[in-house]
């Protein structure tokens, strides 16, 4: 293996890692900006309830808060895992509470 090959095999630069991490967190924080403070806590509590019936993790819950002229929309979507039946309960694969 030549020196050039060795030099080419660089791991991803730390600036690239920083950029990607920032892209994700900034987008996430912007999407919840101006939303009520209780959203993260509500999300966790909802997760606890859902966990009683199906095995899902935190990433499976997506809460979206939108403010339109005059009214606010809280959208909650839960992606349920396939093939893992709920404990005693038949679960549909996607539930959206509007």
């Amino acid at each position, binding site marked *: 293996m030549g020196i050039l090959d060795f030099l080419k095999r*660089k791991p991803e*630069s*730390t*600036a*690239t890692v*920083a*950029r990607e*991490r*920032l*892209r994700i*967190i*900034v987008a996430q*924080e*912007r999407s919840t*900006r*101006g939303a009520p403070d209780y959203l993260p806590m509500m999300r966790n509590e909802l997760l606890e309830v859902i966990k009683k019936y199906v095995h899902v993790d935190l990433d499976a819950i997506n809460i979206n808060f939108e403010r339109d002229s005059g009214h606010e929309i809280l959208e909650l979507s839960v992606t349920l895992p396939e093939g893992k039946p709920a404990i005693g309960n038949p679960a549909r694969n996607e539930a959206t509470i509007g």
Partner: protein
Amino acid sequence: MTAEIIVVTSGKGGVGKTTTSASLATGLAMAGKKVAVIDFDVGLRNLDLIMGCERRVVYDFVNVVHGESTLKQSLIRDKRHDNLYVLAASQTRDKDALTQEGVEKVLDGLSEDGFDYVVCDSPAGIEKGAHLAMYFADHAVVVVNPEVSSVRDSDRILGLLASKTRRAERGDGPVTQHLLLTRYNPARVAIGEMLSVKDVEEILGIEVVGVIPESENVLTASNNGIPVIVDADSLAGQAYSDTVARILGEVRPLRFIDVPKKGFLQRVFGG
């Protein structure tokens, strides 16, 4: 004629707000404007040191707000520029010593006295002092370092500028946002160790108004109590001059964002 109010803010501490406030105010004064620069960091006065007037502080911002001194008594005239004044923060009072009405009264007073610009040097954080520094602003200079926590905090601040200011509340049109990238090291960017100008612009969705290279002259300037913009030989000073010109509406290309090609002598002696 009302004064244009410019807040220098960042969220994160230690990114160069006070250095920027001092150089921005001085640069505006060098351009012939009548300028006041106010330290909003009540309890942690520092702008006076960077401006080199720490031994001439008699009355401060809180004194004026509480009617214990007049504006005229409290404004400290700059040693080098007759049309530049500093209003120091209080060292002894706590951050609750400032009120929205009090700050408004001082800003109105400066407008009546014919000031063209008031530069508000915000404290770090997003609490009361930072809120009051940005509340009345027409323009904001958001100082950011090419570093993850600073970039994230500045996004927070951009959001606050769009919602928690008098302009936003009254629907008077947005606060003009200027992103200033400081402590930039082109050599580290070139080898992938530091976020680039483009990275920061893309993440925050806003163009930079200037890029200040990391420079030893900044420390030298603060050691001496002379704003770095006065040092026309330093790269940081020149970059600040460019930034002030852009804020005044001039179009100037970015400089010092690429790795300088060093000659032999420079390699040996530095520079």
